[in-house]
């Protein structure tokens, strides 16, 4: 089990808890979509798994080498080209200079940006930037990849394509992926398992398995989307005054 969360809780200062009694097991090589409305502490949970923040209660087990992280905005360094951004990740990992070059090119090819390596982030479109960002997080070479709404800011056409792309890369690289989103369709499209987090405090309230049939049968996928949406709305309605 690369990731085990047990009774995980988090509160900032003495405010209300953001996360409360979160339990989850994520298997090696699994693609888990973490779904929730705004304010459910999805990003906080991801930060805790990444080791960027500490939980206030409970226990968690994560891979000892940490996790790769992909942010909502590509967060590429504007003073480096696409290739140099990836090379920097390799360099900080301790990869030698000669190997960095070939490895970065491989990763660029993997995200279909083999010929855009010398472009700077501002010369790339949003989708291309996110793909460079994906390549950079793969360059970290961690088994666990955490993604914090990476496609939320993209246009619909690009997002649909990147869903296919991410699925392909996940299958090719065998990473364990925790993908945070507030988009039910995205969760159903990508996750093998969808975990629904409640809001204030965040807690895993229900989970659904997404099968291979859902990937090809739009009717089945639509049905599941409907079920999950209904459950999500129920959670949101609880907060009505």
């Amino acid at each position, binding site marked *: 089990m690369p990731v085990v969360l047990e009774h995980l809780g988090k509160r900032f200062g003495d405010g209300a808890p953001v996360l409360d009694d979160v339990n989850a097991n994520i298997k090696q090589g699994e693609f888990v979509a973490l779904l929730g409305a705004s304010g459910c502490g999805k990003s906080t949970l991801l930060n805790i798994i990444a080791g960027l923040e500490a939980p206030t209660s409970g226990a968690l087990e994560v891979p000892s080498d940490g996790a790769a992280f992909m942010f909502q905005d590509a*967060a590429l*360094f504007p003073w480096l080209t696409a290739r140099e951004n990836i090379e920097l990740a390799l360099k900080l*990992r301790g990869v030698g200079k000669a190997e960095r070059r070939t490895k970065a090119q491989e990763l660029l090819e993997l995200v*279909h940006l083999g010929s855009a390596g010398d472009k700077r982030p501002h*010369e790339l479109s949003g989708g291309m930037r996110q793909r460079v960002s994906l390549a950079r997080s793969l360059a*970290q070479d961690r088994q666990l990849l955490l993604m914090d709404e990476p496609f939320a800011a993209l246009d619909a056409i690009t997002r649909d394509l990147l869903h296919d792309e991410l699925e*392909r890369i996940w299958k090719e690289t065998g990473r364990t992926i925790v993908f945070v989103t507030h988009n039910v369709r995205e969760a159903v499209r990508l996750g093998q398992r969808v975990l629904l987090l409640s809001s204030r405090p965040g807690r895993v309230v229900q989970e659904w398995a997404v099968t291979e049939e859902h990937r090809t049968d739009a009717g089945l996928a639509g049905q599941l989307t409907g079920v999950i949406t209904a459950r999500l709305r129920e959670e949101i309605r609880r907060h009505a005054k």
Partner: protein
Amino acid sequence: MPSNPTPLAEAPSETASGAAPAEHVHAALTRTSTGHEDLRELESGLDSLQSDADRKHRVDWSRILLPVAALVVLVLIWQFYVSLGVKRRDLVPGPLDVVAQMGVLWSDGKLQGSMWTSLQRGVVGFLISVAIATPVGLLLAQVAPLRRAFGPLISGLQVLPSVAWVPAAIIWFGLTDATVYFVVFMGAIPSIINGLISGVDQIPPQYRRVGTVLGASRLQMALQVILPAALPGYLSGLKQGWAFSWRSLMAAEIIAVGGTIGFGLGSLLDQGRDLSDMTIVMAAILLILAVGILIELLVFGPIEKRLLRRRGLLAGSTR
């Protein structure tokens, strides 16, 4: 528009006639591409649609002609004012008188000599200041207690006119080069430190998070992330640092004359005052100004422009 209603009316009838309603949710819910090659093709099509075509850089003549025209206009106004004869000619010499004086100074070798002396000292003093101020600035920007302790002092030093150090420097070092360099350091170092600190303050917090996630050590974070991210602010700090070096140098040269200090542009200016020769004074002022403009045009301008262009920050600016 008689031709438009046709496609509009067709759209709903198509769905009604049973063209698989599932098609409409297909894109967001299931695999949309048919394979790796298809995906590659789609992506590359979208990439080329979404990226701008490369634009060529060409020489923009207005960049050269406009400043030259402005200069010509100013000189003409000056000449016009002088020819009105409001003031005595020896108090307000015309542009031609000043140019003639420059010619005399040139043939004496004084012009080149003093300019070279000053420029050399300014540049050396500035470079040493950079070498001192950069690590100090990074340290202050990164270590909170240090910054809280010394930040106000550094800001204060930047406000303090460095010419205030001249008397102290003369007492400590006498009329030597050390005096001049000391004053230059006191002018340039605080402003470079401050520029670097404010550059670091303006780094988006996301960059540090990325650095942390990528596993950067403290030193790697400073050199690979913080310093390059702060470069635009650092560069304007350097520009200001150079300005302060040059000003402090001139002040020092005007006040501290003689000894082993050498003959710089400031000394030339002071000599003009001693001789009550306004043409020398004006010539010296124009030369000091010219050095400032040349350094900006030949050194800082191109570096800054390149830096901003590479980061995509130049679009829409008036530079």
